[in-house]
């Protein structure tokens, strides 16, 4: 997406924030449209967020999760695509553990496919909701210094945020232990830091990432232990003090309290915007559904 498209999307989402807060709905907009939430990976907030967004716009929403789908019975991804296509669905929201799976589906179905997170590739609506949250708090995206901290290597949230924020003219940094920063990260247009103190210096936004348990223990671990990780890369009040005085704290959820973020910071009513991110999530997804269904709505 280009900056003007992103701005348009965020403006539209902004209007949905107001509607949501006033308790008003737009039930006519997607009346008669079908939205399928196709989740091959567990998710609570993203699936619920899309479900709410679809329902507030009047769509018929169906949730399919891998546990109840025929994927467990041996059906391939493309078989699933063909089946859903035959059902004439309009919007397909896909979460998959493999990078690129939504692209494959999009080639095979007529519905508009929305990537709700694929492997360690992208999570575009998360980046949009993060951008909306930042823009509301800081009034702009351009020129802000955003530090994305933690397991960048395995984070689709980080990748999508890097693309979006760089496009909007933010200065993006990634901060994390050398074992969790991907190869050639600087080529994505970011500055790489391994030390939180220098990485957070002068940051307007501190975006923490989730560290999966399996990265901290066992044969495949990439950092020695949760306590060491928290000691050097976990965001607590001491480390947050290295950022700007008015820096905001973000986290895509779900949080590992005491690992990548300290509860005192996560629950700080002034600095933490983590709950606001969730609220923005619904509005942004309404905007995305709205725009993507326009082509088939003829209005």
């Amino acid at each position, binding site marked *: 997406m280009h900056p003007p498209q992103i701005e348009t999307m965020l403006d539209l989402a902004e209007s949905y924030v107001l509607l949501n807060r006033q308790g008003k709905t737009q039930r006519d907009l997607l009346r008669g449209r079908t939205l399928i939430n196709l989740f091959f990976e567990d998710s609570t907030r993203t699936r619920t967020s899309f479900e709410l967004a679809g329902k507030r716009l009047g769509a018929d929403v169906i949730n399919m999760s891998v546990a109840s789908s025929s994927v467990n019975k041996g059906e391939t991804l493309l078989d699933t695509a063909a089946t859903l296509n035959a059902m004439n669905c309009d919007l397909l929201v896909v979460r998959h553990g493999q990078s690129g799976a939504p692209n494959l589906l999009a080639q095979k179905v007529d519905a508009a496919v929305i990537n709700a997170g694929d492997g360690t590739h992208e999570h575009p609506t998360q980046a949009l909701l993060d951008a909306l949250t930042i823009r509301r708090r800081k009034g702009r995206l351009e020129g802000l210094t955003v530090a994305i901290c933690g397991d960048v290597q395995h984070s689709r949230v980080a990748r999508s945020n890097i693309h979006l924020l760089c496009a909007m003219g933010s200065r993006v940094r990634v901060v994390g232990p*050398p074992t969790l920063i991907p190869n050639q990260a600087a080529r994505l247009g970011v500055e790489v830091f391994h030390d939180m103190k220098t990485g957070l210096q002068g940051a307007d936004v501190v975006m923490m990432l989730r560290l999966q348990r399996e990265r901290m223990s066992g044969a495949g671990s990439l950092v*020695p232990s949760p306590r060491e990780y928290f*000691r050097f890369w976990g965001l607590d009040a001491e480390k947050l003090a290295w950022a700007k005085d008015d820096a905001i704290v973000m986290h895509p959820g779900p949080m590992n309290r005491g690992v990548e973020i300290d509860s005192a910071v996560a629950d700080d009513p002034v600095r933490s915007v983590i709950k606001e991110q969730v609220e923005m999530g619904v509005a942004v997804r309404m905007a995305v559904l709205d725009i993507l269904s326009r082509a088939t709505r003829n209005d």
Partner: protein
Amino acid sequence: MTDTLIQNARLIDPASGLDQVGALLVRDGRIADLGPALGRPDGAVVVDAGGAVLCPGLVDMRAELGEPGGEFRETIAAAAQAAAAGGITTLAVLPNTDPPIDDAALVRLLRARGEETGSLAILPYAAISKGCRGEELAELGLLREAGAVAFTDGTRAIASARLMRLALAYAGQWGARVVQHPEEPSLAGSGCATQGELATRLGLPAIPPAAEALMVWRDIRLVRMTGGAVHFGHVSTAEALDLIRAAKADGLDVTCDTAPPYFDLNETAIGDFRTYAKLSPPLRAESDRLAVAAALADGTIDAIASDHQPRDADDKRLPFAQAAPGGTGLATLLAVTLAQVHNGSLPLVKALGLLTVAPARLLGAEAGTLARGSPADLCLFDLERSWRVEAGALPGKAQNTPFDGRALEGRVLGTWKAGRRVFG
């Protein structure tokens, strides 16, 4: 503490290249002054060195201790005795003890145990992997904060390339080197002598010298990939040294040490199944020994370490293949190194540099120099005095020296730790 004035000494400080006859004044545990002629402060204790060499206390960057877990082999107190007799005032110790040094509290314990000796600073290496098992990274950050000088799994090679990659990347964050025992374990197997005619004649399972070169090549490649810093301990083969030499020329952060047996002895020392000469890596062919000596002279080898490994009689009084590898080295480190000076292979100042300032720099330790203001860790030795190494008569506890019977020139006369005389 009263001042100490050491007069009539040949002062050698490899850190600055100083080599001149003069005096050195110790005050409050530090080197207050040194020069060709110093006045005697009131009440100072005067030591007449009689023209002997006074150099910084030796920094030994590789030793195994019996504590914790192997006190029957050697306690820290006994090792400190042997170290003082050998002129060593700073000792870096390997973490493959029982329990392994993979927890910050154990690093602090070892540091404190060193201080308790009053004569020997102990610089602990910490484990790279939990339990030195070679599987998961240990808490390198917390270990470093507690005072670990570098990371290694000790006498166990880091076999997994994945773990080595992580360790190099992660340890770099803490400015510490990863120290490797350079031996590809799957190739070394249960071998106990270097591959060649002698091992064949003795009917001993052999370790190909290539086992060392393979690991060195792999780790240099991983340094290139991660930007980390690796140090190879007790390098013993010509082939591995060639690889290290080339890596240095490429500007990679690759360093190494060797131990006296590898430039003073060759495989024939195992002669009639002498288990005291069973070492890891094994004593090599004469061509490798010559290559090690040459690499000391040309700077490829950064430091000489004792590679001290205490063993008791029960570890060694076994059929050769079943005996434990390892030799003591604290008391003989200086004299065996001086053999390279006496045979013309190494200049004296350079040889002492390999035993003092060079390892101190690799470990980031405040030691190994006679600069004014530095701790008064000193070693006074007679360059010419000859003596014979005798297993059973060595200072300390462990007696398993591979140099048993070797006649050497160069005897430590006195050792000072932080200004206090601890030997002689």
